[in-house]
C-alpha cells in the first residue's frame, strides 16, 4: 500500500490538534435572519431582469434585500454544535447560544 505523503500527515495532525474533542449539540427549530444586516449602498435599487433564451428583455422586477423572498428561508433546522472543555463551560456556552436565537414552536403534522 502506498504511504501517505508528509504534507497530508502534517495536515491530519494539525486537524486533530485543532479539533475540539468534546462537543454538544443543540437542536430545534429556530428563526434566522434577526442578526443579518443588509447594506444598500447609495440610492440605487436592486432589480431582477428576466430574459428569454436569445437574451431579449422580457420584464423587470424590483427586489428589496430588506425583506425575505420566502418565509421558509427564515427558519433553520440545522443543529448548533458547541465545543467545550468542562461541564461548567458547556453550561455557560449553551445558555449564551440559546439566548441568541429565537426558538419556534409548531405542531408536527406526522
Amino acid at each position, binding site marked *: 500500500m502506498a504511504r501517505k505523503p508528509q504534507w497530508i500527515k502534517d495536515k491530519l495532525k494539525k486537524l486533530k490538534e485543532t479539533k475540539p474533542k468534546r*462537543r*454538544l449539540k443543540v437542536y430545534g427549530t429556530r428563526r434566522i435572519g434577526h442578526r443579518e444586516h443588509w447594506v444598500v449602498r447609495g440610492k440605487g435599487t436592486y432589480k431582477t431582469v428576466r430574459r428569454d433564451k436569445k437574451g431579449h428583455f422580457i420584464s423587470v422586477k424590483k427586489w428589496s434585500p430588506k425583506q425575505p423572498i420566502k418565509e421558509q428561508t427564515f427558519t433553520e433546522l440545522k443543529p448548533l454544535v458547541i465545543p467545550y472543555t468542562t461541564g461548567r463551560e458547556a453550561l455557560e456556552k449553551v445558555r449564551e447560544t*440559546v439566548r441568541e436565537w429565537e426558538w419556534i414552536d409548531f405542531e408536527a403534522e406526522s
Partner: protein
Amino acid sequence: MKLKAEHEWVTRGYVIGFMTNKGVILDLDNMKFKKARWLARTLCKQYKLEGYLLIKSSEKNYHVVFNRYLSWRTITKIIFRQYEALRWAVFQMQSGYLTLRISMKNGENKPKIVLKVGKADKLIKDYLEVYEAFKEF
C-alpha cells in the same frame, strides 16, 4: 395494546445532545428494561467495553453509554451489528458523530440514570459531567 411508541418531534423549544465519536453509545427504542440490560451486558462482555451506563429516556426507551474509548472504525463495526439500533445508527453515521439527548424533550422526559456497571473513568465520566451540569434542562 400499543406495540410501538411513535416518534416524537421536537415541537417546543430546543433539545441538548451529548456528541461523541470516541466511544460506543446506543439508543434502544421500544424495548423493555430486561432486554436493554441484557444487550448492554452482552456487548460489554463481547467487546470488553469495561463498563456501561443504562439511562431511561422515556417509557420503553433506553440509552446505553459504554466506558471504553474506541476508534471510529470499531465503533461503526459494533453499532451496525446491532439490529435493535440500526435505524438510529444510519442517521448518526451521516453526521459522523453519535448523539444522545441529555435534556428534556418538549418539556418532559428528562433522561434518568437507571444502572451503572463496571468502570466509569472514560466516556461515562464525560457523559456524567455534562449530565450533572445540565440537570435543570
